[in-house]
């Protein structure tokens, strides 16, 4: 698996489509199957594929860990903040009816905002967990015997 040209090219084609599909799932969840949780996971899967193909360091430059940690909390803040907003507008906590001109519109807006918060938290939590796990593994795969001498030579820290 040293000549990864094919995988890199297909990854370049596939990753934008995965992210685009995640957005479709996020904002189409009120009409078809889907919603914030699913969209967040698909979004994270796109980033993880990027990290797998182009390396963890590249992914860290694209989606820096401080931003990931910020977004994990920010999604929860959006959700809880929607509840506070509906309280300020004179209703109960998380009662979205007051957010729009009519009750049905308000519910629609509220659900979209809340799902966005869920998606943000889920996506960044998954990437955060991936960051924590990746790069901590052993450098060898000798349990399966696939590391040959050639590979040992070109490993940077072998």
């Amino acid at each position, binding site marked *: *698996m040293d*000549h990864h040209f*094919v*995988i890199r090219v297909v990854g370049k084609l*596939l990753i934008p489509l995965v992210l685009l599909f995640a957005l479709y799932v996020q904002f189409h969840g009120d009409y078809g199957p889907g919603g914030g949780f699913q969209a967040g996971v698909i979004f994270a899967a796109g980033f993880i594929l990027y990290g797998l193909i182009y390396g963890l360091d590249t992914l860290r430059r694209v989606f820096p860990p401080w931003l990931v940690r910020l977004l994990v909390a920010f999604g929860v803040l959006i959700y809880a903040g929607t509840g506070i907003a509906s309280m300020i507008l004179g209703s109960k906590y998380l009662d979205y009816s007051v957010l729009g001109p009519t009750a049905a519109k308000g519910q629609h807006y509220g659900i979209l905002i809340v799902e966005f918060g869920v998606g943000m938290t889920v996506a960044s939590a998954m990437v955060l967990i991936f960051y924590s796990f990746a790069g901590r593994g052993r450098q060898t795969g000798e349990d399966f015997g*696939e590391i*040959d001498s050639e590979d040992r030579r070109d490993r940077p820290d072998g």
Partner: protein
Amino acid sequence: MEIVNHILFYASWALLAAGGLLCVIGAFGLVRFPETYTRMHAAGVIDTGGALLILAGLMLQSGLTLETVKLALIMFFLLFTSPTAGYALARGTWSAGHRPITHTRSDARTDGHSDSAGMTDDG
């Protein structure tokens, strides 16, 4: 119009049946073939022949609707991902030191015709 509908119906029926048959053939090869490389070849029958024929049959069924677009997208993704996954898998298997069988089956009877000698993962 009636005739066109009939032709479409039988064409999609034939495509679906052929796709199902290719899936079974491929999976049968996946079980019966002696080592990883030949099994990869059998899996390719599912990934290309089976998938394409079944999706094409479904597309004929649904006509010009959003479903056809989605089926075309599924076909597009499968056409890119499964060969790439197969390629990566073959490279991984090769790097791990597995070598394809190059002798015939009658030779194989003398020295054990599977790749599994010393290569199993659950000893």
